[in-house]
């Protein structure tokens, strides 16, 4: 076994007996590129089509010309949307909700993950498993009881939460906190015990250990969790659809669908522009922080 392991990768090429192997590899590479191109086209058609349509005027959209090409590009749709108060309200609501949810999520899940990863207490192991299980409970199971709960709460206390954008700040953390806590338990657990033991011996409190040692060391994990929390709250569709109805309280996805589609009239140019602008923030974040995003994605199901 040991002798086979020491053969380096270039060896087969030097040996004429293995000549077919490098030919196989080149052949496989060509096919890989071919199929990857097909898959990439499949992946990118809808977003590209959004872009193409967003640059067309409504006359060009309803004309029977080639839909895959823009003959008279115009920025009219963008100008119209970006100057309409409604759209800006949706965008503002979405941004507010996402920023607050990310903050709340981090404030809850970083200390909790630290406590669960490092400081055992009664029931902490059960709680760690429970956090993962809650992450598996989907929003589609909870929206009806939550709706009824908030309606009852409004009747009982007089504080109306339904149809206010900030109700989403209370609900979204149920989606983001379990996952973020879970991946951060993984990150924190991978930090060598000597680091925090040394800090405790030096007299740091548990809180100081968290802020001065764990947060800086686990920063990549925290960034991954932050990106994840942002994308989840930016993309959430069911909860805002259930909990908000007035136009000034809607967030982007629901706003585009309820206000730009009027009856059977689809203003596709504006819908696609809105969809593209709605997809832009996650896409931009992803373009710059792809590795963190992927780390967060893979950590969720592989760690633990």
């Amino acid at each position: 076994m040991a002798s086979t392991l020491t053969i380096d990768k270039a060896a087969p090429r030097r040996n004429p007996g293995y000549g077919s192997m490098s030919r196989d590899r080149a052949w496989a590479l060509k096919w890989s590129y071919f199929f990857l191109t097909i898959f990439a086209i499949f992946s990118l058609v809808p977003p590209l089509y959004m872009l193409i349509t967003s640059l067309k005027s409504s006359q060009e959209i309803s004309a029977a010309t080639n839909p895959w090409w823009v003959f008279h590009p115009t920025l009219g749709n963008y100008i119209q949307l970006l100057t309409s108060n409604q759209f800006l309200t949706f965008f503002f609501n979405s941004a507010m909700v996402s920023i607050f949810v990310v903050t709340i999520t981090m404030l809850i899940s970083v200390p909790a993950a630290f406590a669960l990863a490092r400081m055992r207490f009664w029931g902490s192991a059960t709680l760690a498993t429970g956090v993962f299980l809650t992450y598996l409970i989907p929003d589609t199971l909870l929206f009806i009881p939550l709706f009824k709960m908030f309606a009852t709460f409004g009747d009982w206390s007089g504080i109306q939460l339904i149809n206010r954008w900030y109700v989403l700040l209370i609900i979204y953390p149920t989606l983001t906190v379990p996952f973020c806590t879970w991946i951060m338990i993984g990150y924190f657990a991978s930090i060598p015990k000597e680091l925090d033991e040394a800090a405790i011996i030096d007299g740091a409190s548990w809180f100081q250990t968290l802020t001065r040692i764990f947060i800086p060391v686990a920063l990549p994990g925290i960034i991954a969790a932050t990106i994840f929390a942002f994308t989840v709250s930016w993309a959430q569709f069911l909860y805002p659809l259930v909990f908000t109805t007035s136009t000034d309280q809607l967030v982007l996805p629901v706003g585009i669908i309820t206000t730009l589609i009027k009856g059977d009239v689809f203003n596709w140019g504006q819908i696609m522009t809105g969809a593209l602008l709605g997809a832009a923030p996650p896409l931009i974040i992803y373009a710059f922080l792809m590795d963190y995003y992927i780390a967060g994605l893979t950590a969720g199901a592989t760690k633990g």
Partner: protein
Amino acid sequence: MVDIPYQPGRVAAASTRRRRGGLAAMMKRKSMVAFLMALPLIVLIGVLVIYPAFYAVHLATLNKSMQRFVGFDNFLFLFKRDTFWLVVQQSCIFAITAVVFKALLGFIVAHFVHNVPAKGQRKWRGMLLVPWVIPPAMSTLAWLWLFDPSYSAFNYTLGLFGAGPIPWTGDASWARFSVILVNIWYGAPFFMIMYLAALKSVPEQLYEAASIDGANWWQKLWYVTLPMMRNIIAITTLFSLIVTFANFDIVRILTAGGPLDHTHIFATWAFRIGIEGSDIPLGASVSLFMLPILGVAAIFILRDINKRGNES
């Protein structure tokens, strides 16, 4: 990497405190601090996840005006409705077909990406992951427009090849095909990235050893790759099964359950009945049918996690 400033006063204070409190008191304090740190999490999960889950069961046993306990009447009523059985059928078809294709496609694409030299991998991975990054509500709108009956880009393209227009979302079986296709488009990148991570963790030496032993491509896949990836395949598939089964956005936007309720799945039908039809108890009963499959999947995932926890 981490600099802790030297604080002589603090060290002295801590050591005196330790002498005074003793080890037992410190442990007690530690678990108390830990509990307080985890308290917001416990409250959140308890009040906004566990309680509503049980509350849904309670709601399901009430009558429409939510004043009278009716036991299992809501469920019995559902069993008598044809639409309910359509929903059960469609939920199963939708979830199983979509997950199988997502897993297959993800597996194949992951292999292709893995074949490409490391330098170019980032670029391909980036392009292939785009469907997963765009909010599904936004991308489904693009699909809706691609499927549009009169101006659809797909039908225009098919027309160039002389193929007739396809009623993508108008005909029951085409509508089922469309929602599954969009779900595969959206979910396959997740499998791709998970499988790619798994492929990268397989030691290259195993393949070299297998080639020297004369294993062909298929044998290497069957005896080296699959056993090494088994855990990730299992956990990703189960996880995706839950998410796909509970899907809402795609079906809601693409077909809203139509034509004639043929593409409704549990989540969209529960929304239609519970929120749009304001029959909250019946809606809650519908969504509760997702529980058994979630429970089974969760048990398997948990077993897998515990098993790996014991191994490491």
